[in-house]
């Protein structure tokens, strides 16, 4: 399969990439790992006149950096790096699990975090886990930089707050005090090379092991036009001492909040039922990791 012709440029800094995007106008596209863009270009879904590579922007920077309670994930970190990152595994295990669930090893060695979020698919596997940690994304253009909660970032299938001339330069997480545990579960027909039928990422923060829930996050993939927070489920959990009944009710609440569609992978009704199961199982695992239920 051939790619259509385009002009190619490599940026050496974020500022230079922003300048190139500003100069090139609406016909420019950024390329990071290329696993989304090149497939879309081969299929004729996208035909940029100019492609700006940001592969050199990583420099020697680590995939994940921690400064006190703040975690910064590099947008050019690959899924393979995130999947194997000990800092990330320890602090936000479900984000590493989300990265591990993407495609296959061959895809994970190319696919980047920035590309996963910027492509803004409802099935993007790092999105629900990052939503569960209240992550923020930093966006930069020639005219300045600002930070947006990931929860406000996704606006529709393939659509986001990212402007055509903007670069996603960091994903940031402020780790909460207390005792946290998280989980990510993805349902597909097979274990590899599978786009999620439905997925759930949860995070529970307890005031102390075995204690009450200080913060609960339930985020869903592939069951709405965007990666979705299930707020009614979260509200149900807040301030309670978790038990099996509560966890089941939260799963059912999340299923009611899902807005799934029928497609070739699964029916809307099946997706909705699976949300209840995935959320229940994910909450059970997260609770155990947070030291609950003792």
């Amino acid at each position: 399969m051939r790619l259509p012709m385009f002009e190619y440029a490599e940026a050496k800094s974020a500022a230079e990439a922003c300048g190139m995007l500003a100069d090139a106008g609406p016909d420019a596209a950024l390329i990071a790992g290329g696993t989304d863009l090149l497939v879309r270009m081969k299929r004729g879904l996208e035909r940029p006149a100019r492609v700006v590579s940001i592969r050199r922007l990583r420099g020697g920077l680590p995939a994940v950096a921690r400064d006190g309670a703040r975690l910064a994930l590099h947008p050019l970190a690959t899924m393979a790096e995130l999947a194997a990152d000990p800092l990330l595994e320890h602090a936000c295990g479900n984000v590493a699990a989300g990265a591990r669930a993407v495609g296959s090893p061959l895809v994970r060695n190319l696919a980047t975090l920035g590309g996963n979020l910027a492509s803004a698919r409802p099935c993007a596997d790092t999105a629900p886990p990052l939503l569960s940690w209240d992550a923020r994304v930093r966006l930069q253009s020639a005219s300045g930089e600002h930070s947006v909660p990931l929860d406000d970032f996704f606006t529709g299938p393939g659509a986001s707050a990212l402007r055509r001339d903007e670069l996603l330069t960091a994903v940031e997480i402020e780790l909460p005090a207390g005792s946290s545990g998280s989980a990510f579960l993805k349902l597909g027909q097979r274990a590899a090379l599978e786009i999620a039928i439905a997925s759930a990422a949860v995070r529970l923060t307890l005031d102390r092991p075995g204690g009450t829930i200080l913060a609960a996050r339930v985020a869903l993939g592939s069951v709405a036009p965007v990666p979705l927070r299930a707020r009614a489920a979260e509200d149900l959990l807040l301030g309670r001492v978790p038990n099996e009944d509560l966890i089941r009710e939260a799963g059912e609440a999340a299923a009611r909040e899902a807005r799934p569609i029928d497609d070739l992978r699964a029916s809307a009704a099946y997706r909705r039922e699976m949300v209840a199961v995935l959320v229940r199982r994910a909450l059970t695992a997260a609770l155990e990791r947070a030291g609950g239920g003792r």
Partner: protein
Amino acid sequence: MKRLIRLRVNGEPVETAVPANRTLLELLRDDLGLTGAKEGCGEGDCGACTVLLDGLPVSSCLVLALQAEGREVLTVEGLAQDGQLDLLQQAFVEEGGVQCGFCTPGMLLAAKSLLDAKPNPSEAEIRAAISGNLCRCTGYQKIVESVRRAADLRRAARRGP
């Protein structure tokens, strides 16, 4: 409009002019005549085009040749040394890990990167490592056994005679 790039392919320096829309797979097959990597799907789904890029297995159909500039590429042609099959290749022959052969170059390279990192992998680790490489012939069992055998051969070779 072409651009001059430099990279290393199977240990040899390569300098060549490529148009922007050339994939690494096309560069290898059409420009360099290295037809070991195959085009199956062209979209990252099958792994027939697997090569090692700086030691890591990737789908070369989803890499621009220009993005491989300055990097190290290993294809199946780079495995045998001085006319001698690599131990992985030998294991695939001995265990019947090859049928039609279309997936084999990709399987070998995915397996090589696994064994380079983990000399004694579990069956689950082997299956995970080749999970991006589809095979329509073998049912995978013989491939898993081939990789297992290659791990044994490699460790035996390291211990010496």
